[in-house]
């Protein structure tokens, strides 16, 4: 294990990873200060004959400092996180006219509805492939998530995407892959006895390859 995040392949992953490492540095500094302080005090003030503890009930000044400093840092972090979140999940963040797929989860498989040759979902030429999610790189795509039975969670680590699929709801998410290759969808929400093996293949193509694959599938149907 190398204490890193896996390869990132999405535009959202760039900002998510950056935010992760900003927090890692901030909390890392706080971690070192607190743990070093505890160890230092434990050694320096350990019991000695004749040593008398300093009698004090505290310090207003110290309280104000250690209330205000974390509050300011956390507020800035919260506002920054809110901005990034709005870019990813905000109501207006969903791209217009992006290629759209329906992903329907059920115990223990992922059924992907493809838009077909017209590039539009919910039309007659749509086709469904089980446990295979092909899509093009370098353009935003939309996934409309649904579930037929229990709650599942759509997780592709390399795309830094995770969203629960909830029965009775249709939840749209979007992402843009920055490279091609073969990966996996994993289910991240306990969904029953086959939860651990509820995976599906993810294939990210460049656009021409995707169109060719899609045409081949449509012809095969």
């Amino acid at each position, binding site marked *: 294990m190398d204490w890193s995040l896996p390869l990132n392949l999405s535009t959202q992953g760039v900002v998510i990873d950056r935010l*992760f490492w900003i*927090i890692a540095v901030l909390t890392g500094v*706080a971690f070192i200060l607190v743990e070093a302080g505890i160890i230092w005090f434990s050694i320096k003030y350990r019991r000695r004959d004749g040593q008398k503890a300093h009698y004090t009930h505290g310090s207003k000044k110290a309280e104000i400092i250690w209330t205000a400093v974390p509050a300011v840092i956390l507020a800035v*972090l919260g506002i920054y996180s809110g901005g990034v979140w709005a870019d*990813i999940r905000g109501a207006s963040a969903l791209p217009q006219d992006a290629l759209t797929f329906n992903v329907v989860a059920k115990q223990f498989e992922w059924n992907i509805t493809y838009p077909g040759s017209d590039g539009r979902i919910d039309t007659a030429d749509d086709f469904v492939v089980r446990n295979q999610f092909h899509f093009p790189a370098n353009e935003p795509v939309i996934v409309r998530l649904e579930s037929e039975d229990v709650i599942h969670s759509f997780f592709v*680590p390399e795309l830094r995407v995770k969203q629960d699929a909830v029965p*009775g709801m249709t939840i749209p998410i979007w992402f843009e892959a920055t490279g091609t290759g073969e990966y*996996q969808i994993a289910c991240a929400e306990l969904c029953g*006895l086959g939860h*651990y093996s509820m995976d599906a293949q993810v294939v990210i193509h460049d656009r021409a390859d995707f169109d060719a694959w899609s045409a081949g599938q449509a012809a095969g149907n």
Partner: protein
Amino acid sequence: MATIVAEGTGQAILEEHHPQTFLRKYMFSTDHKIIAIQFLIYTLFFLMIGGFLAIMMRYQIAWPDQTLPGGGILPESMVASGYMLPEFYNSLVTMHGSIMVFLAIMPMLVGVYANYLIPLQIGADDMAFPRLNMMSFWLMVPAGLLTLASFFVVGGAASSGWTLYAPLSARPDLSGVELGQIYWLLALVLIGLSSILGSVNYITTVINMRAPGMTWFRMPLTVWALFITAILGLLAMPVLSAAGIMLLFDQTIGTTFFLPEGGGQPLLWQHLFWFFGHPEVYILILPAMGFTSEIIAAGSRKPVFGYHAMVWAIISIAFLGFVVWGHHMFQSGMNPMLGLSFTISTLLIAVPSAIKTFNWMGTMWRGNLHFHTAMLFAVGFVAMFAIGGLSGIFMASTPVDIYIHDTYFIVAHIHYVLFGGSLFALFGAIYYWFPKMFGRMMNEKLGKVHFWLTLIFFNLVFFPMHGVGMAGMMRRIYDSSGYAHLQGIQDTNALITFAALGLYASGFLFAFNFFWSMKKGKKAEANPWNATTLEWQTPSPPMHGNWAETPVVYHGPHEFSHPDVEDKDWLAQNERPDVVSPAGGGH
């Protein structure tokens, strides 16, 4: 249990008037001290069970392709031809969490220590409602039996996670578990009732039964923490109980509160569960913070640094704890616009936690630190809780949570809070108050070995889980070998399992020390730690009724190293400085 028999004149006098049978005295006792000890034995038993479930789980995670050693003695519905079945693994995941939260940690923090300490620390002779108190323990007994029995019914124990997310938890046809789930929900309702009765009792006792002079701001921080915890319990547990009954109805009589096919909403369950669940996290940590404050003050021979700030931090954590539940649901399909407000409230609640951490360090600063076992665990609590608090910031940040939600990063975080936090503080509390409870000291040498083994193994188990989570390992999976992105962490998973075995084994060292010391430990004085709060100013163990005469309180709870007191470094709450050291008077 003969060692519990109190010595002292008060007891003798009372016994003359009320001869008690063994049953009345130790089984159906209304004495808060006996009830606390009943809770302690009960919760230690379930701590052992909960830990054992985790060990079986860890074995499966580390070596999914191997047979479970000793698995042959388990029924075919759990382990078939030597291999653990995924449905049994899901039951282990579910019941480990459920047992640890509801039958071990929570009743140990509250059932044991609110019961034991509140009357003794405020100078009362018992709880306000002793019979209600007895009932709150005896409701836990059928709850525990139902929980254990649920493993052996058709379909096995509940398997939808300790969070019981609907529809999986409500649909036996989809989970494969019917009776086990019903048993657990019934147990949960009993636990809820027990907890509500307990809360009413603790709140009433603190408000009405404080000794003369025990003003609000002279109460020990343990009492403050337990009082606020009781309020949290009173407000949160009814929500869980109601939601649990709704879930039971969905499962058994065909209602559809949480099932979309009948117009219900799966997310309603999550809102109700987490509206309880997040205050619950603070129910599980505030008392631990209280114990830690007492032990660190006594161990450092200093008053608690920033006592008032500590009280206000407890109160603000409790208040904010009710408005952060949505941070468990960032990826649930809840309207994303809610994300920002829950992020802000969640980051805000980190501030009082930080204040408390700095004040504990302030208490140690320029102290005269006595590192007995209880102090080691209390300082260990601060060091480990800090890690759990800091790792929480990652998931409070909504975009980062997209990636780490439902991974082992969360598992690492929750265990730094509930084990490194709550359980470390509880071990400290057991070592610290054991002499008061049983009249004997626990063995310090064994205690120190137990501390260091626990600290080392705990960190070897849970620190690497942050890395496992960063690699993207999902929670609650029975076998990760089918995932390309998880191939590189299998060695780490095996290391974690070895360390978990060590951690579990060191628990038996503690158990040995506990039961051996109960019979054979060195006799304890009334005040073995030279501490200031009232429970130390009466014999160990205290007589029935607690006090020879009702104590009168003259000042705050942690007057260590008072400059006006010359011949000792502590001043009990019921001692006046001008009486202890007349020369140094003037206060």
